């Protein structure tokens, strides 16, 4: 129990946008502050990964505090690769739990679409240990999940079609989300035939480059949405050192810690946003978080159990695959969708208004994972 509550949320459209990194950040923050009724803010945390390398822009925390007139308050940029947003939220929660702050503004933002794909791929590779022989061999971030997927196929009866079913589900969800990057429906056939990025992962199996921002206001003052648990762990930074390639221990361990803190189990979770940076990753994550047995997540996908109307709705926002993946914003955007689900006004609203929601945000190839559990009270 964190004793912290969600008071406001904001999110820009995700996609290829004209706005600068700063404008995206301020737009999402302003919406969240207005949604919260413009409370006094005691601190700011901003999740961002490549503002420095791609946009030559740092000091995002101070920019938010200054341009939004929040006063001489502490502000911090948080980097944890694709988990930057989730870690920023956790830092804000810890600030409240420590007693130092009453109310904190947490945001995440990324601007990627203006840069060349090769340059962005290079910048994303900074989320691996770049001093290793495996980086020198040419392993990429998507490549790690391609290697994982081929081994998963080898040890199970899963095929590329199961990956495609994850991508199709998340696209169907994204089509109904007005803020998602991809509004266009697709088909299993189109997904299966798409050009290869890193075998066996095709274009639709990989989260896109995205511009966007999301923000959230949390406070020790009560609201209808309590942050019941926050957890974070670090995991292996190299593929060749994985004890079991088909397990991403950071996801499993962050989930176990969050369930323990919340006094809940996977069976109690009504709606889920998980880090589907690749279709394969969603299957591993639903196993690691205990929703399905190891090496059986693909069966749950085949049986439609993770669809909006299924027993465990996963990524009702469209996930990273279709909502988009502005790296630093993703962890906050997941919580944005879950708050909407708990409020009962989400895109792809789950029937019966869910009570318990879980967000899992991954950084690197399993280097970081955060889990947040929200509860409607």
């Amino acid at each position, binding site marked *: 129990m964190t004793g912290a509550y969600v008071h406001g949320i904001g999110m820009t459209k995700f996609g290829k946008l004209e706005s600068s990194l700063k404008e995206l950040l301020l737009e999402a923050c302003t919406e969240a502050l207005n949604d919260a009724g413009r409370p006094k803010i005691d601190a700011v945390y901003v999740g961002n990964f490549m503002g420095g390398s791609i946009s030559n822009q740092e000091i995002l925390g101070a920019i938010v505090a200054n341009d939004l007139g929040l006063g001489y308050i502490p502000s911090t940029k948080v980097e944890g690769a694709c988990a930057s947003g989730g870690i920023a939220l956790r830092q804000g929660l810890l600030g409240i739990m420590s007693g130092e702050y009453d109310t904190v503004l947490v945001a995440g933002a990324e601007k990627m679409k203006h840069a060349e794909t090769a340059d962005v791929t290079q910048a994303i590779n900074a989320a691996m240990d770049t001093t290793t022989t495996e980086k*020198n061999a040419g392993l990429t971030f998507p490549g790690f999940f391609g290697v994982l997927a081929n081994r998963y196929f080898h040890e199970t009866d899963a095929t590329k079609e199961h990956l495609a079913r994850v991508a199709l589900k998340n696209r169907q969800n994204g089509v109904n989300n007005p803020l998602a990057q991809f509004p266009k429906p697709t088909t299993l056939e189109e997904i299966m035939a798409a050009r290869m990025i890193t075998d066996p992962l095709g274009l639709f199996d990989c989260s896109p480059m995205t511009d966007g921002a999301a923000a959230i206001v949390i406070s020790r003052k009560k609201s209808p949405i309590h942050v019941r648990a926050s957890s974070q762990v670090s995991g292996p930074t190299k593929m060749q050192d994985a004890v079991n390639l088909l397990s991403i221990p950071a996801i499993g361990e962050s989930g176990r810690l969050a369930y323990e803190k919340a006094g809940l189990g996977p069976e109690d979770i009504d709606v889920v946003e998980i880090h589907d940076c690749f279709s394969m990753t969603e299957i591993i994550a639903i196993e690691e978080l205990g929703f399905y047995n190891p090496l059986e997540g693909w069966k749950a996908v085949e049986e439609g159990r993770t669809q909006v109307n299924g027993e465990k709705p996963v990524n009702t926002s469209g996930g990273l695959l279709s909502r988009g993946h502005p790296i630093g914003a993703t962890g906050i955007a997941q919580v944005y969708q879950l708050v909407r689900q708990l409020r009962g006004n989400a895109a792809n609203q789950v029937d019966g208004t869910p009570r318990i929601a879980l967000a899992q945000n991954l950084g690197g190839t399993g280097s970081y994972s955060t889990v947040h559990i929200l509860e409607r009270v």
Partner: protein
Amino acid sequence: MKIYSCCGNDSIAKKYNCAVCGKSEFEEKEVSDNGTVYSFTKIHIAPAEFAHIAPYNVVLVDLDEADAKVTSRMEEDVAIGDKVTLDRIEDGAYIYKKAS
């Protein structure tokens, strides 16, 4: 291939400390470069520094004489279970080839 071992874990890379016992002294032993393909991918979309050689295969090799794996690059296409051996070390990367 040099292997660093402690507390039952083998690795081709030396860490500062063992995650189990915390000690910084690792047992070092030399093992054969030969191994078996554990898994692989063919990378079509490469970062800027590797774009000129794409598409290329990145292969995770399970070493025959140690409980350790090596991430390597290969010019030939492979399948899981194929026997492979070290061809050369190039720009800090292990380049493997199929065992004849």
